[in-house]
């Protein structure tokens, strides 16, 4: 079961290093930071497992578990910062920063600002327009909606 302990150590290491990096370089893209650290963690884990002569099935299981753990954490922290439902729940429990309370309805200002930073939107004299990356995302979303047969 040493391989399982190695996975837990690697995942904890990735999450804690990400927490430190977010404080040292808060302006950088948090998802890119996390993905880079996760890749580094997976590489280190693979090296440790090879060095300790762990059987192949356990090695595969360890790497798959680390990948799943990282994907789950990535999902949780992006969901926590972007979900309207969670913002409402935090508002109701009074856990939101009192100096920046949740509006009566979620305002698009912060999202738009974020999308400008991520270069999904462009600022124009009249307002905003889709940037090429934003256009790709809208097209992809439409393809997915057609595949999943979501009602339009």
């Amino acid at each position: 079961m040493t391989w399982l302990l190695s996975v837990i150590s690697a995942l904890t290491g990735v999450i804690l290093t990400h927490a430190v990096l977010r404080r040292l370089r808060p302006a950088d893209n948090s998802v890119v930071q996390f993905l880079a650290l996760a890749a580094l963690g997976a590489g280190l884990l693979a090296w440790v497992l090879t060095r300790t002569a762990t059987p192949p099935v356990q090695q595969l299981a360890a790497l798959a578990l680390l990948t799943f753990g990282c994907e789950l954490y990535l999902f949780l922290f992006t969901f926590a910062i972007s979900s309207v439902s969670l913002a409402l729940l935090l508002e109701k429990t009074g856990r939101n920063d009192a100096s920046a309370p949740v509006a009566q309805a979620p305002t698009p200002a912060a999202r738009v600002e974020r999308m400008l930073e991520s270069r999904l939107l462009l600022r124009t004299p009249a307002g905003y327009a889709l940037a090429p990356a934003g256009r790709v995302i809208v097209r992809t979303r439409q393809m997915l909606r057609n595949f999943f047969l979501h009602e339009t």
Partner: protein
Amino acid sequence: MRSLLLITAYLLVHAGLYGGWLRHRAALRGERTIFLYHFLSWIISVGGAGAWGLCTQGLPAAGALTVLCGSLHGIYSLSFLELWSLSQGSYSLSILTAVERDSTLESLRPDAALLGAIGQQKRAARLVSLQRLGLLNAREAVTPPGRLAAALISGIITLSNGRNLNR
């Protein structure tokens, strides 16, 4: 390697079944049913992998096979459900789509009533969702599970040094 191939084949059949047949069925279009389709499959495949490992390779390998199957199915299901959910109703994607629809003007003012309306609709729909999940009661007050969920979310936001964007 045989185990990896078997697990991959199972996941491909699961995805193929959905893509080829089940997505056309109305019953599989709801949030709850699509989640159950993945969750039940996860339970069955993990149980099957564990039993198969025990019968053919002994306890240590069976444990690893169970973890391998559970993790690979978890990666697949989480990705699938995230895409399903994002394509259904993400606030950011709704804003991008609203900007794209304004093709005659090629732009949209940040304070446009349309974006505000999206926010209002989201808020109303999400309040109902939170009540249905038991995180808020009928008077929109937070329940004990809601407090626990809020504490977990706050912990994750603090750990990742983030802030909720809906403020």
